[in-house]
């Protein structure tokens, strides 16, 4: 079952009244959506508010979502429209005059965009998370590091990774899991999820 089908299963759970399932979609796509909206709105504080509004709008519109497109494509459209509406209420226009779609947004390398305008505390936190993940990656055994890089950065399936690494699919699955757990173990003290962030 691919990513899109798994998302569709989550959507159907939400459509049957499971709000918690919507939380899983938020957790999965929040940073992508924030990156997208950050292309239109420069103020990081506003970006999160607009992203939240977009998620709420998506939740309200979910009964009409029939899976004709991937969930994230649909969500990104809502994100762009929400951001444009916000700009209109502020008497401003979106940065591009020729329109803006999710595919275009996905192509941007805008990792530094929010850092330029974010508060120092948030920039520091983001930087620490990035450095911790990178140092944890460096500390991984080569086979684990290769497996998770092929998956997360190259986007390959387990079958493709198994062919490249010349090992069974089960081994790929185990390596990727162990890599994630090793990185997460180093990340947890930094995150130390506050009670108000739990759900």
């Amino acid at each position: 079952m691919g990513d899109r089908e798994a998302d569709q299963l989550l959507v159907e759970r939400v459509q049957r009244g499971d709000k918690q399932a919507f939380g899983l979609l938020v957790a999965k796509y929040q940073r992508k959506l924030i990156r997208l909206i950050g292309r239109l709105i420069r103020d990081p504080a506003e970006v999160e508010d607009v992203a939240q509004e977009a998620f709420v709008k998506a939740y309200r519109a979910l009964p009409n979502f029939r899976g004709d497109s991937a969930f994230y494509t649909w969500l990104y459209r809502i994100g762009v429209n929400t951001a444009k509406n916000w700009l209109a209420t502020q008497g401003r226009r979106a940065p591009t005059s020729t329109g803006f779609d999710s595919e275009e947004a996905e192509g941007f390398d805008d990792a530094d965009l929010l850092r330029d305008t974010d508060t120092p505390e948030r920039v520091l936190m983001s930087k620490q998370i990035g450095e911790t993940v990178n140092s944890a990656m460096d500390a991984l055994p080569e086979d684990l590091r290769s497996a998770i890089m092929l998956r997360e950065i190259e986007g390959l399936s387990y079958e493709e990774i198994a062919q490249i690494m010349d090992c069974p699919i089960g081994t790929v699955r185990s390596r990727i899991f162990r890599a994630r757990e090793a990185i997460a173990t180093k990340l947890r003290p930094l995150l130390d999820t506050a009670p108000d962030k739990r759900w």
Partner: protein
Amino acid sequence: MTEKLSALMDGELDEVETTAAFARLRNSEDYRRHWNEYHLIGDALRGSAGLQTDMTARVLEALISEPVVLAPSLRSQSSASPFSRTLALAASVAGVTLVAALAWSGRPGAVAEVARAPVEAQVPIQLTGADLQAYLVAHQTHAPSAQGAAHYIKTVSIDAGGY
């Protein structure tokens, strides 16, 4: 078990396992924490901005006041197995057949009774000339000619020897 969660994130579980994993995510805060962490790691490796952001709890809190979403499932309609579709078709055919059979078995007797019912002789009413005249005079106002253009036509008599 979190190995399955890791595979779930990569879209590498089958539908049954995926459904089971989602059910577990619903019930386990610890499992959801792993879900968050693994997605954060993926975003960090891809160089995403805003790594410090976790707005899930905030969004869910905003949804508290929202009515619960309820929509008919497309999947449940489209994913019916061939067996269940065949069963439904067979049930429909059986139903139509039963109704037709009942109708067929009940109707011939009724038709036969109607056919055998004695027909009363229709006796024509005989009107004499005087009776007919009285009848026509009495019903003149109901005659079609009295309602239409004929009402305005002046009746004249023509002598045989006229002009």
